[in-house]
């Protein structure tokens, strides 16, 4: 019966759904997504049928029993039989709805026996992904909004995936049961990807779990769905589902990159490279609060800032440890020494802050260790 209902629905809505303006839930790519979609369609069609019946009676009455037509009011009221019927029948319909709802829910909650565990941490306003593996160099990274401010503030043409694009997506293998452990660093967030039908609140101090098994490769986009502060609308989720081989290669590359970064930390890097990397980090991590030209906003101005133009170790202390009681986070745990050096160099030389200071990874390591 469920198949019939959703089949009919798909045929009806297909021409509309094909257009740019999607009007219905997507069945998504996963088995659970399809189950939820069918459940949604089943309940919707039951409601439509009941609604059509009820409103047909009402509109008929409005037409046929008009006073202007000279209809005389009859004075009947109360009928135990009718009243029992319209209490019992809806109750039975509800039971019919509860059965598939229960089985789908139990399926959603079957988190056991996953082959890959990913720890997802919500931050104001980005996501951190960490692959939980028994051993080896841990792979963890932040995923920031990649849409440039120029598009948001309408000075540039908006791209196809406006607000739904990130610098580094979560990569997962297809046909693998992936378990997500979801938590948050500050306030409550909620991790949602409609196409894989996973939505779970990320609560600071507690872990929640959810799972998926994505059968086909692709890029799936979603957003944070729990109000988490000013930039709640600007922390998308992007999941790349790739083949197992591709995933393994990607993991190996990630591990390699971590080792390279560690090696870089001991080298002296050219100014251009630091400035380029610093700008990239600034744009994804600092710009939302401190402005595209360092002019400030939620945060203080960077351009001409006494702190930035002043003592390097004070500057780094603020970036690394944040300022408690304000939106300024501690970036010490989020940026490695190379990245920290790059963003410090950039802040001290961009926006007219021409200090000429070049901060090297080694300097950062040195300051960290006192």
């Amino acid at each position, binding site marked *: 019966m469920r198949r019939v209902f959703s089949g009919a629905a798909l045929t009806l809505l297909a021409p509309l759904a094909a257009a740019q303006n999607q009007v219905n839930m997507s069945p998504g790519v996963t088995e659970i997504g399809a189950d939820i979609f069918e459940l949604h369609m089943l309940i919707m069609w039951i409601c439509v049928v009941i609604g059509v019946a009820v409103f047909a009676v009402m509109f008929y009455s409005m037409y046929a029993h008009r006073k202007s037509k000279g209809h005389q009011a009859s004075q009947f009221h109360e009928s135990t039989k009718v009243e029992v019927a319209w209490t019992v029948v809806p109750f039975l319909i509800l039971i019919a709805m509860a059965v598939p709802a229960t089985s789908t829910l139990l399926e959603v909650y079957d988190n*056991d026996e996953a082959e890959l*565990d990913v720890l997802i941490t919500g931050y104001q306003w980005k996501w951190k992904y960490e692959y939980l593996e*028994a*051993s080896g160099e841990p792979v963890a990274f932040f995923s920031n909004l990649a849409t440039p401010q120029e598009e948001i503030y309408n000075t540039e043409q908006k791209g196809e995936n406006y607000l739904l694009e990130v610098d580094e997506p979560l990569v997962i293998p297809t046909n693998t049961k992936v378990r997500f452990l979801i938590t948050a*660093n500050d306030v409550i967030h909620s991790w949602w990807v409609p196409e894989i039908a996973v939505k779970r609140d990320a609560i600071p101090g*507690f872990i929640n*779990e959810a799972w998926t098994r994505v059968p086909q490769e692709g890029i799936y986009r979603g957003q944070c769905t729990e109000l988490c502060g000013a930039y709640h609308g600007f922390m998308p989720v992007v999941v790349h589902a790739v083949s197992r081989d591709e995933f393994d290669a990607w993991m190996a590359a990630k591990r390699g990159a971590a080792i390279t970064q560690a090696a870089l930390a001991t080298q002296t890097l050219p100014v251009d490279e630091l400035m380029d990397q610093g700008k990239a980090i600034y744009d994804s991590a600092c710009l939302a609060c401190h402005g595209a030209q360092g002019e400030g906003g939620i945060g203080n101005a960077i351009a001409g800032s006494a702190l930035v133009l002043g003592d390097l170790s004070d500057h780094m202390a603020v970036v690394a440890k944040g300022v*408690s009681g304000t939106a300024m986070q501690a970036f010490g745990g989020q940026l490695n020494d190379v990245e920290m050096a790059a963003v410090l160099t950039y802040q001290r030389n961009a926006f007219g802050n021409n200090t000429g200071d070049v901060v090297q990874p080694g300097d950062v390591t040195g300051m960290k260790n*006192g």
Partner: protein
Amino acid sequence: MGSLRLSRVPAIDTALKLVTVAVAMFAFVFVVMVPLYNVLCDALGINGKTASQAYTAVSTAVDESRQVTVQFVAINNDDMPWSFSAGERVMRVHPGAANGVVFRAMNPTDAEMVAQAIPSISPSRAAAYFHKTECFCFDQQALAGQAGVDMPLQFIVDQDLPTDIHTITLSYTLFDVTDTVTDGLAVR
């Protein structure tokens, strides 16, 4: 409203009784809802909370017939600069057996700080079967600047753990509580 009368004027009598109800509901939030929620959380593992006191009952038998994977996750909350990690990320344990693992914390700043680790278990259903006989999370941890510490956790997974649970994840989130315990610091 029964025979109890709070005033001879009927309307004022009704009003006084309703004021009593309102005050009782206000009190209800504090003296019933909050404690009841905590009791339910402890008992049923809602939210994956674990008991906040050491488990003292003596475990009798070890279930050698099955093994459960226990996964450890160490998380830093907002602005917490300590480094914090589990000595082992994954363990295979027999239900009923006593196990130990060590978490390592290091305070990279120059100032003394106090931290509180908050445990959370997933699936939350398993929380009621996860017994900690010793845990650093029972107390706050104070660390001098640049100091590190090994923090032990001793636990037993109950033999009655439902057999459909094969993996238990235990996460600790480390919160900076230095500001709220300045008195404690003065003593040290």
